[in-house]
């Protein structure tokens, strides 16, 4: 494609391996990573796409941020050509600063704080859907492992909260994207948070290191598994499992098959 079209395609996410791999209509997206291969960059990419003005309807997003302050996301996304400050002002982006969540006295039940948080998110989603903004809404959580710390280890409370968020996806035409650190749970017995999330996910994107570790031209490998149903309950079309390499840049990320880089 001509350079200008290619640039546009890149900006709106069409034409790269990750977009190809992600089935349209995935409602629950689980992004997994580990210390050696962090995947916050995937969230940044998906957030940018969620806010992109493609298709005239415009998107909206709610970012539940436990990992970083707003300034961090603002600067990162700015380098990717997305102005979070502007989106926040125009209320297309709803930023929940949860670095101190739940805050308040230790005595208060975490279940109550999570219920309040859910109500706030639900209100935001309802407001967006009711307005002229008929585009897709995305609720993003960075990250679920920290939410578990905020809940003082009560995985049940976190799961309840996540299940409520999932109901939003079917009732309100919005999608849920969550990041979880897979290596925290790999040594655990039994069915924990990670197993539950994998079960309810339509799409699982997992970042892992290469056996050779970090290199300047390849930062790791991404595997994308399409497991879910689309709307109308039909199984997702197309290839189920994708696997490719990635390199993270300031303005986005490159995805490519091993050995295919010029």
């Amino acid at each position: 494609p001509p350079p200008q079209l290619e640039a546009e395609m890149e900006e709106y996410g069409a034409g790269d391996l990750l977009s190809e791999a992600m089935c349209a209509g995935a409602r629950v997206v689980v992004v997994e990573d580990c210390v050696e291969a962090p995947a916050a960059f995937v969230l940044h990419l998906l957030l940018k796409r969620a806010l992109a003005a493609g298709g005239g309807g415009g998107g909206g997003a709610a970012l539940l941020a436990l990992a970083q302050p707003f300034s961090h996301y603002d600067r990162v996304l700015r380098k990717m050509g997305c102005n979070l400050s502007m989106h926040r002002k125009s209320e297309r982006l709803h930023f929940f600063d949860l670095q101190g969540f739940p805050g308040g006295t230790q005595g208060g039940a975490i279940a109550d704080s999570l219920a309040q948080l859910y109500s706030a998110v639900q209100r935001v989603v309802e407001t967006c859907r009711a307005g002229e903004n008929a585009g897709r809404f995305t609720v993003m959580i960075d990250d679920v492992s920290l939410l578990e710390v905020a809940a003082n280890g009560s995985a049940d409370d976190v799961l309840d909260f996540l299940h409520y968020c999932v109901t939003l996806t079917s009732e309100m035409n919005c999608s849920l994207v969550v990041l979880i650190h897979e290596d925290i749970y790999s040594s655990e017995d039994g069915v924990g948070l990670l197993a539950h999330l994998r079960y309810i996910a339509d799409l699982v994107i997992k970042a892992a290191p290469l056996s050779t570790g970090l290199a300047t031209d390849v930062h790791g490998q991404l595997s994308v598994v399409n497991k879910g149903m689309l709307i109308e309950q039909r199984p997702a079309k197309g290839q189920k499992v994708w696997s490719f390499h990635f390199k993270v840049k300031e303005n986005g990320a490159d995805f490519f098959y091993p050995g295919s880089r010029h």
Partner: protein
Amino acid sequence: MVMEDSDAPHHLLLLRAFMAQGVVHKQPLLFAAPMKEPRSFLGALPAPVASSKEDARQRAMGGGAAGDGRASDEGLRIAWQYRKYFGDERNSNAEHRDNKQEFSHDFDLRKPLERHLLNAQHIECLSTQDVDTLHDLQNRSSAFLSKHQRKEGGNLSAGRIAIQSLCAPQCGYFGKDWDMVSFLRSLKAMVRSSNAVAIITFPYTVLSDSFCKRWQHLADTLLSIKAIPDEDKDLAKLLTGYQDMVGFLHVHKVAQTNSQVPVILEASTFSLKLRKRRSLVLERLNQAPVDGSSGPSSGGSGSCSSSTQGSQLDF
């Protein structure tokens, strides 16, 4: 955050240098450790190596190797190289001649810091031994950091928090896994919005694998230390300067503040050397190239668990 080797106290070398530098520059310091009297540890902080005028002038001109061709054998120093942020050197020298503007110090581990420097008001110490919660440390950290909020226009006063062996068994709150990780999360957020840096060492082997991973994820920059034995003939053959080496320092990750791009270092493993028992030097360790293949990852390539079968360099 620094993963300790429980067989050796080398993490203390890093803490001593970090704390000494803060004291020398009159930067506020909060030190917490599982000791009855953490203040006594201040007596172990090393004094800067007395430098001649010639050395000072040479440093101000940007480093040893360039001008006169004399090769610097210092290797890497543990220092924050603020020098490059002061535009015109002549101005900065004139203004700060009295303030000893040099930020990069060599420390003499055999010489303790002058007593009067240690009695300053901005140095706080706190014991984590025999306290059964982290509330006090959290409150003290919060109070310390609130005094050093970032101001517009910048300020040169940076605060330092040094916490030794945060999860050590001697700590009264030992075993309260969720409390500890909760404290870390809270400290990270507070430090982020302040003009301070925190270095936390921890004996990771007392944590479960799961919580060890949680701690690793919370770190902005993650280092680990491994001691090496005194008399290992194989290592002596592999490494030059083995006699001076006390251990290895591995860099697992580097802070990516305001960026999503991982920091790729030319070398991520350094040897910890004690030159003449008095100066600590980090030197890049050159290993034989790893056989690279683009096959699927076996995972755990950055694993911190000690392997009984791996080589000494594998950690």
